[in-house]
């Protein structure tokens, strides 16, 4: 391979999610079809129009040392926990010092849709109630959108580049795509990449509810996130982070690293249709899928699993399936599809990170996680949706996709193969 088209592989994974405090417990939750959605017990939630969310299973303050945690926004706490797990999982011991990877060949790309929103709002409360002198001197590095990437970069001593793509709910996917390009084009040998979000706070909840994006369903909270179901009526806000370690195949082989799968490529496009509504026919999503096929060696025939973006909104889920059908035609019939958001809720900028972890593990374990809460499959969803029970994937080399779409019309499709 020349320096501008190097093979990229996944060598580490980490997560902290509504299903568990690490990738293994999250994966276990996904396979058993467990919901991470629950009632918000906080006093502030009492009067909100939506009182459910998918909160992380393990509070970050029980994992991170307090002096470190108090200088990090909650979103950065999640990212750091997931990144440390992924870093260790990839076999790296301690920050880069040139023995396992050179700092100048190591990058970090961690995205968030909203950044340090809880820090911003909490410090504004302090400003109003206690005066300017009490505003934390850590506020700016905590609220800046690249705070998570910067802290992960510091943790591993990344000096090839520390980046934060921002595209709302596509951010995590975009981060992993960007990271793969850093390796493919020779800028880095190893990149820690993923997404994170911590926006379960009355203001974002009220704002998402008022734009009619959140489900107003007041049934059992675990039954509300129901992608592809006929009765779906909006997403459930989630929080957490998913991070992977990407590495050039050459670098991974040289250090004898365990390889989960290859990252084949990414497809990108923009809808230019509406600031928050998806283009109903999936034109932009189809363009991203086509872009993936045009810029990689992926063949539709080898795609066995798709981790859909499907957030449980009436328009979005069907637009996605329409786009998949438009690009893949009859090939879509041999692709099994699930939305793990039925269990995790929607992690916004963290979604692409978490769902990449799920997609990578599906390939590695030859088992695709299901979609839960599909009581009546919407007749508009003409595709093979995995419902309730995990689905074995074929032996031999197969590929899997992870879709992420964001407000602003951003479309990102990531492709993996093993």
């Amino acid at each position: 391979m020349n320096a501008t088209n190097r093979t990229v592989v996944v060598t580490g994974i980490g997560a902290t999610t509504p299903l568990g405090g690490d990738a293994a417990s999250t994966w276990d939750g996904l396979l058993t079809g467990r919901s991470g959605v629950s009632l918000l017990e906080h006093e502030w939630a009492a009067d909100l129009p939506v009182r459910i969310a998918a909160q992380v299973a393990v509070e970050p303050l029980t994992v991170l040392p307090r002096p470190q945690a108090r200088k990090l926004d909650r979103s950065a706490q999640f990212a750091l926990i997931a990144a440390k797990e992924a870093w260790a999982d990839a076999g790296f011991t301690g920050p880069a010092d040139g023995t396992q990877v050179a700092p100048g060949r190591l990058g970090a790309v961690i995205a968030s849709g909203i950044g340090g929103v809880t820090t911003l709002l909490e410090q504004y409360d302090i400003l109003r109630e206690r005066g300017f002198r009490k505003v934390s001197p850590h506020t700016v590095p905590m609220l800046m959108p690249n705070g998570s990437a910067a802290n992960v970069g510091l943790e591993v001593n990344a000096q090839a580049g520390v980046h934060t793509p921002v595209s709302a709910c596509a951010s995590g996917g975009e981060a992993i795509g960007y990271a793969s390009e850093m390796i493919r084009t020779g800028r880095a040998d190893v990149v820690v990449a993923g997404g994170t979000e911590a926006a379960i706070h009355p203001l974002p909840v009220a704002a998402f509810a008022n734009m009619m994006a959140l489900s107003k369903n007041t049934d059992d909270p675990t039954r509300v996130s129901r992608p592809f179901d006929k009765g779906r009526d909006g997403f459930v806000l989630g929080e957490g982070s998913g991070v992977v370690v990407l590495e050039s195949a050459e670098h991974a082989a040289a250090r004898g690293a365990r390889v989960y799968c290859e990252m084949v490529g990414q497809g990108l496009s923009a809808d230019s249709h509406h600031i928050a509504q998806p283009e109903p026919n999936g034109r932009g999503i189809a363009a991203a899928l086509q872009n993936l096929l045009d810029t990689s060696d992926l063949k539709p025939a080898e795609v066995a699993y798709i981790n859909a973006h499907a957030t449980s909104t009436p328009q979005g889920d069907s637009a996605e399936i329409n786009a998949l059908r438009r690009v893949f035609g009859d090939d879509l019939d041999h692709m099994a599809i699930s939305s793990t958001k039925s269990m995790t809720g929607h992690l916004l900028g963290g979604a692409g990170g978490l769902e990449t972890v799920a997609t990578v593990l599906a390939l590695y374990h030859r088992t695709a996680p299901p979609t839960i809460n599909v009581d009546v499959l919407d007749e508009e969803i003409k595709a093979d949706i995995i419902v309730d029970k995990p689905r074995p994937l074929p032996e031999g080399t197969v590929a899997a996709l992870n879709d992420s779409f964001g407000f602003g019309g951003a479309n990102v499709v990531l492709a993996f193969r093993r």
Partner: protein
Amino acid sequence: MAAINDKDAILEGLAEIVNEIAGIPAEEVELDKSFTDDLDVDSLSMVEVVVAAEERFEVKIPDDDVKGLRTVGDAADYILNAQLSTQS
């Protein structure tokens, strides 16, 4: 003797503040320790230490004076003097 007791009390208070902010055990916070070099208090965290000390000891520590506070002893002396000068 009152002044020495005050300084001990100030040290104890500073130790609690540094423990809260930097996680250093209170008994390791001694007068000759440097905030930056020994106690893991960077320039941003130092602002937190100063604001907490102002509140606890009811003194004002202007930003320009903060860079003179290299060690815990520097801070204790500064606070002691500031308290004495407000009393007189």
